[in-house]
């Protein structure tokens, strides 16, 4: 039988195991993510790993797989549904495509004015309902308090105002929410694999790309698109998610520990992100990037343009009056 081939090298742990496991039998949770370890989120994951080790009894450990080593986000989520001990990061746009339609709004342009509004929303009843819908789909949210960064726009020609952006072809990740969201701002969004973006910018196949500074800088886009427009069109928080099938095999203590250390690492992450954002900006300036800040009037112009996105709820399969519901949930009228 299968068990027969397996001796002491097994690392399977079931829910019946209590906290007296030694390290050999410890549950190894695999965290797979697209970023590299040197990015803030990678550093914060090392912190999570360390916190779990310090606060736990060694019965549960974290293994890190940066740079999509363990597979793409979709593959990892599928493997969670098959019961694999996997955690990955995902955001509203992804969950929308996954069938929890309303969560797509989290990635809408200019939804949040401040990060406080964002955290207010993730603590709201509305968010709890959405989390439950995800659980019905077999996905358990572990932490939703991680800043991923503000998304800005880099272009290969000078862009100073919202009007300059009109008609430019900007690469966005391949999903409906981000495509429509960026189209609403007047640009022409196009999907493309992140690996191809550098060359496409260099040759002018596309005019720009949008992402948090860490990714823009990490992909070295400043070499081929030396104009940074600080649009901040999405305040991008991210979530860590695992499969309910795996989560339910953990003891209540292990569950509690995984969640609490994940949130604690999130706070550490948010400090890092703030600090790094300034650093990345400085690095970009040092490498000759022209940085353009928007005036408050120009921001208003974008915010107004973004309204057309929120009226497309039917296209996205949203609940009625979702925009108003969400505004109310973050404490706005």
């Amino acid at each position, binding site marked *: 039988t*299968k*068990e027969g*081939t*397996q001796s002491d*090298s*097994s*690392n*399977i742990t079931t829910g019946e195991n209590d906290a007296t496991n030694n390290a050999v039998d410890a549950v190894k949770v*695999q965290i797979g993510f697209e970023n*590299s*370890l*040197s990015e803030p989120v990678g550093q914060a994951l090392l912190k999570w790993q360390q916190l779990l080790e310090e606060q736990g009894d060694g019965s549960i450990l974290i*293994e890190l*797989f*940066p*740079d*999509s*080593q*363990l*597979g*793409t986000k979709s*593959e990892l989520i*599928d*493997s969670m549904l*098959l*019961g*694999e001990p996997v955690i990955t990061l995902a955001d509203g746009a992804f969950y929308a495509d996954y069938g929890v339609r309303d969560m797509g709004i989290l990635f809408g342009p200019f939804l949040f004015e401040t990060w406080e509004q964002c955290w207010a929303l993730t603590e709201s009843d509305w968010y709890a309902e959405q989390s439950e819908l995800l659980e019905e789909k077999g996905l358990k949210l572990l932490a939703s308090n991680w800043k991923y960064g503000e998304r800005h726009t880099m272009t290969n020609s000078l862009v100073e105002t919202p009007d300059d952006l009109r008609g430019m072809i900007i690469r966005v990740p391949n999903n409906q929410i981000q495509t429509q969201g960026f189209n609403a701002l007047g640009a022409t969004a196009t999907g*493309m*694999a992140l*690996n*191809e973006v*550098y*060359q*496409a910018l*260099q*040759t*002018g*196949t596309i005019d720009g790309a949008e992402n948090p500074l860490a990714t823009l800088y*990490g*992909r*070295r886009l400043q*070499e*081929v698109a030396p104009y940074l427009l600080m649009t901040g069109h999405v305040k991008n928080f991210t979530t860590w998610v695992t499969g309910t099938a795996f989560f339910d095999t953990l003891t209540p203590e292990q569950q509690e520990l995984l969640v609490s250390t994940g949130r604690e690492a999130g706070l550490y992450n948010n400090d890092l992100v703030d600090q790094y954002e300034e650093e990345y900006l400085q690095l970009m300036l040092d490498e000759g990037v022209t940085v353009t800040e928007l005036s408050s009037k120009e921001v208003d112009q974008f915010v107004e343009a973004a309204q057309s996105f929120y009226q497309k709820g039917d296209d996205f399969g949203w609940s009625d009056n979702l925009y108003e519901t969400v505004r109310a949930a973050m404490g706005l009228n």
Partner: protein
Amino acid sequence: MNEIILMTALVLLVLLFFKVPVYIAILGGSMMYFLMTPNVNPILFAQQSISGAESISLLAIPFFVGAGVLMNYSGVTKRIMDFAEVLTGRMSGGLAQVNILLSAMMGGLSGSNIADAAMQSKMLVPQMREKGFSNAFSTVVTATSSMITPLIPPGIAMIIYGSIANVSIGRLFVAGIGIGTLLTASLMILISIVSKKRGYKPIRTERLTLKESIKTTRPALLPLMLPIIIIGGIRLGVFTATEAGSVAILFALLLGIIYRELKKKDFIQAVKETVTTTSAIMLIVAAATVFSWILTRERVPQQLTEWIVSTIDNKYIFLLIVNIFLLIVGMFIEGNASMIILVPLLVPIAREFGINDIHFAMTYIFNNAVGALSPPMGTLMFVTCGITKCKTKDFIKAALPFYGLLLVIMLLITYVPFFSTFLVDLIY
């Protein structure tokens, strides 16, 4: 866990050497892992074999295979080859030289060495055989020269390396031109030596008359538009390197119709060849994806790297170990996949030893490329042999002088930073 990995690798190698189709052999080894590891869901075996065939960056493969096949049937290849003979007719190993030059040129387009090798195996090898080159030699020349592709910009390998290691991609491109040229020139010299020895004589000794030259050049004018359209289109940002493949196919189709050489029967045959060749190539890539996923999941590359870090304290020994390590890794894991795992681990150590970033990058990328050619697992060898029906035994025999040359170049790049950095220093 390590004994399971050892068993997996052992089964894989035994199957591979006992004439099991390569694709099945790699999957078979991987299957053992799933059978012996009860806490991993075996459905992931299917997931990973599927995901390996579902990659946007490998789209270039069906496109460039298709372009090669269609150019053969539409009469484009023949016209280009006649023209190439005008240029190289008096050189030893004429068409073999054309094969090399074409890869250096293609380096600017497809960006994928597998796509390049597959296309040229379809296009050039039959022509070379017609001119008296052996099948094995033609296959080896095609496989080896496609190593030039990732070196000459643009290339996904450089972009991935630059992003992960935070090294200027522009500088990597420039350095790649230097190394790519070095490789191109050395391969051409080697070919002319081998050709002389084997009696692959020049096609003619006399100069062609102007009239004769014009006579063979004129039919090639339209086909020669193809590289111009493709390179121009990419440089001007009309389409990406991957999309260029679809343009090439449609252009070859158009010429086939203009020349009236592409009959309905040929067209059907071309489609059949394209899909079966693409399938055979991509299934090997997909199977390798499963195996590489297993190694990653069990943290094998990570552990080996940790071992290197903890044992080596000399810069030159470190470089030598990197040479050997990457050759072995290159055999078992697809180049870009291993880069994602290894670059973040190896680059900080190289920096600690004071090795120049560009120098190490070139060492890494060249090494990785050589791995794709090395038996027992070199993808390039399987791809080209699969298409030309060359026996791997004959391939390896014919490849020996080429392995020798690659080894010399590899050592030069590894131990003489000048080759990697001189162009960069000149330009920046």
